[in-house]
C-alpha cells in the first residue's frame, strides 16, 4: 500500500498473538491496511480469521491473554499503544467508537438504556448540563429513528433492531472520525438486517465518518463498503474496491470459494460450492500459504513460502502465487 498522509486509520505490519492452552495462536499475522476519511472498509472472513481481533486491536481492547506483538496502529495519526491509560480512555470513543455484534449482550442488563447513553457524555464531556445531554441524546435517537421514550427501557425490553439502532446512536454520539462495526447485523433477521444496513449508509452519508465494517458475509459487505479486505488465517489475502467483488474479476481462490458458496436469487437454478477442507488451525499453522491445504491450485511454491499482497490489473491486490503466475503468463502473452 502506498504511503498516504490523509489516512485516518493506519495499520502497519500488525501481528496479534493469543496465548492459549494449546500454544501461541497468531490471530492477526502481519496485516497492513489504510483507511481514508469517510470511506467504508469491509473486512471479511470466517470465524477465527482474525477480523474481530483486528477490531479489538484497533480499539485497544484486546483480551488479557492476547497482545499486539508487532507493528503499529494509528488512528488520526495517534498511536493508542503509546498513550497512558487515562489518555487512551479519553481518546477512545471520541475519535474511534464501535458497534458490537449484539447490543443485547453489550448493553448492561440492569441499567436503563438512557443512563448508559448518558455515561458517554458524563465521561467525555463532563461540563455538559443534564438538559443538554438529554437534548443531544434525543437528537441522536431521532437520527436512528428510535422514539426517545425508549431511553427509560432496559435493553431486554427492546427488539433486536431497536437495540442495534441505539448502539449506532451511541457510537456516533461524540462524532468520531472512525467507527468499528463488528458484525453489527449478523444477529438480526434478514429484513431487519437490511433496514439497519440502510440506516448505517444513510447516517454515514450525513456524518461522513469512516467505517471498518466486519462481517462473514461477502455479499453484504460488498453492498455497503467502498473497499474490501478478505482475511484468512490472520492475513489479508485480497484487497480492493468493493466493485471488484460483485464482478467476475480475478480473485484469490479463497475469495472465489466464498463467492461460490453463497446462494443467490438471480438466475434460474444455480449451483453453489463450498470451500473444501476445514478452517485453519492457528496454533499449528502450516508453512507457506495458510490456504494451501484447501486450495485446488496449490503447488510447491505455496508450501514453501507465504505469498505477499501484490497488485493485479483490475485495481485489486491478491496474495497468491497462482495468480502471480497467471498474471506473468498473460503479460508474456
Amino acid at each position, binding site marked *: 500500500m502506498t504511503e498516504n498522509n490523509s489516512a485516518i486509520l493506519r495499520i502497519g505490519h500488525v501481528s496479534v*498473538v*493469543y496465548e492459549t492452552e494449546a500454544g*501461541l495462536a497468531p490471530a492477526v499475522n502481519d496485516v497492513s491496511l489504510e483507511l481514508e476519511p469517510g470511506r467504508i472498509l469491509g473486512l471479511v472472513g470466517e470465524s477465527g480469521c482474525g477480523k474481530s481481533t483486528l477490531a479489538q486491536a484497533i480499539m485497544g481492547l484486546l483480551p488479557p*491473554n*492476547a*497482545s499486539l*506483538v508487532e507493528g503499529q496502529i494509528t488512528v488520526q495519526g495517534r498511536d493508542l499503544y503509546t498513550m497512558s491509560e487515562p489518555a487512551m480512555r479519553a481518546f477512545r470513543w471520541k475519535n474511534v467508537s464501535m458497534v458490537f455484534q449484539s447490543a443485547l449482550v453489550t448493553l448492561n442488563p440492569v441499567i436503563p438504556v438512557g443512563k448508559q447513553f448518558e455515561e458517554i457524555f458524563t465521561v467525555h464531556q463532563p461540563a455538559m448540563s443534564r438538559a443538554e445531554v438529554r437534548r443531544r441524546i434525543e437528537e441522536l435517537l431521532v437520527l436512528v429513528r428510535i422514539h426517545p421514550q425508549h431511553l427509560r427501557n432496559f435493553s431486554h425490553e427492546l427488539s433486536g433492531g431497536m437495540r442495534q439502532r441505539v448502539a449506532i446512536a451511541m457510537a456516533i454520539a461524540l462524532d468520531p472520525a472512525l467507527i468499528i462495526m463488528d458484525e453489527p447485523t449478523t444477529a438480526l433477521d434478514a429484513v431487519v438486517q437490511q433496514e439497519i444496513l440502510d440506516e448505517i449508509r444513510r447516517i454515514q452519508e450525513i456524518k461522513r465518518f469512516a467505517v471498518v465494517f466486519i462481517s462473514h458475509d461477502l455479499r453484504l459487505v460488498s453492498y455497503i463498503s467502498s473497499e474490501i479486505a478478505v482475511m484468512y488465517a490472520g492475513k489479508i489475502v485480497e484487497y480492493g474496491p468493493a466493485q471488484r467483488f460483485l464482478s467476475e474479476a480475478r480473485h484469490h481462490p479463497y475469495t472465489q470459494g466464498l463467492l461460490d458458496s453463497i446462494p443467490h436469487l438471480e438466475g434460474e437454478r444455480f449451483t453453489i460450492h463450498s470451500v473444501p477442507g476445514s478452517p485453519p488451525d492457528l496454533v499449528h499453522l502450516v508453512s507457506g500459504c495458510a490456504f494451501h491445504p484447501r486450495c485446488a491450485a496449490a503447488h510447491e511454491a505455496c508450501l*514453501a513460502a507465504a505469498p505477499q499482497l501484490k497488485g493485479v490489473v483490475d485495481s485489486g491486490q491478491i496474495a497468491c502465487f497462482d495468480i502471480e503466475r497467471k498474471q506473468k503468463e498473460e503479460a508474456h502473452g
Partner: protein
Amino acid sequence: MAEMTASPLDAKDDGPRRAPNPSRFGWLRVLKKNRKAQAGFIIFMGFILVAVLAPEIARYSPSNTNFPPLQPPSAQHWFGTTGLGQDVYSQFIWGTRSSLIVGFGATLISTLLAVAIGMYPAYWGGWLDRVMATFTNIFLVIPGLPLMIVAAAYVHHSNTLTMMVIIGLTGWAGRARVLRSQTLSLARREFVWAARLTGASDWRVLVHEILPNMLSLFMASLLYGILGAILAEAGLEFLGLGNLSGISWGSLLYWANNGGAVLDGAWWWLLPGGLGIAVFGTSLALMNFGLDEVTNPRLRQTSLASKDRLSRAWRALKGESPQ
C-alpha cells in the same frame, strides 16, 4: 412460584458459543493441574488414612480415664490429657474416624434425597417438578441447625445412625436445587433431545447423557455437603444432642467446653477438635477451587499476556518457520 415460562421463540442464537468443557472426568483432571486442589486432596487423603488406621495409630483407648487430668502435651500424651484424665491425641484420632463416618453417611443420605427430589422430577417436568421445587425451596429457607436441634431433641439419645439420618434428612435442599437447575438446563440441550429421538429410554438419557455432564458440579456440591454435615454434627454434639458416649471432633469440643477447658487454660484440650474440623473443611474447599474452574472456564487462570514475553515467543516462532 416465580417460574417463568421460557419463551419458545428465543431459539435464535447470537453466534457460536464456546464449546463446553469436553471431559467426563474433568473433575479428576483438576488434580493434575490445580495446585490448591492438589494440596486439598493430600490433606483429605491424610484424614481418610487417619480414620482408617485409627486403631493402629491411637496410642491409648480414647475412653481410658486413668491418666493424670489436665496435663499439657508431653512425650506420653502428645496432645495432653482432658479434665477426666483421657488422652486427647487418642480421642482426636478416634474422633476423626467417627466424625468422618457421620459426615460421609449423612452426605450419602442427603445426596440420595437430593437426586430423588432435585434431579429426577426436573427431568420429567410438569406438576411433579413444580411441587418438588417448591418443597426444595421451603427446606432451603427453613434454618437447618435449629430444625436438626428440634429433631435431635425429640430423639433423645442419638447414636451414630440417628445423627446421620437427622443431618441427612435436613441437609439435602441446597444440593437438590443445584441438581435441579443443572438437570433443567441440560435436559433442554439439543444432544439430550437427539438421544431421545434415537430411541434412548428416559433412564438411559438421564444416566448416560445428563448425569456425566454434571459430575463436576455434582462433586463440588458433594464436597460442601460433607463439610456441612461435619459442621452440623459438631454443632449438635456441642449442644449435648449427639452421641455423648461416642468420641468425635464435636464431642471433644463439647467436653472441653463443659469441662472448663477455657477457664482452666487447657488450650490443648480445646484445639484438636476444632482444628480437625477446620483443616478437614479447608481441604474440601481447596478441592472445590479446582472444580470451580472446571465448571466455570472463566475462572481458569489465564496468564496475563506480557507483551515482551509474547513478542519474544512470536519472534522465536517466526524464526523457526521458513519465511
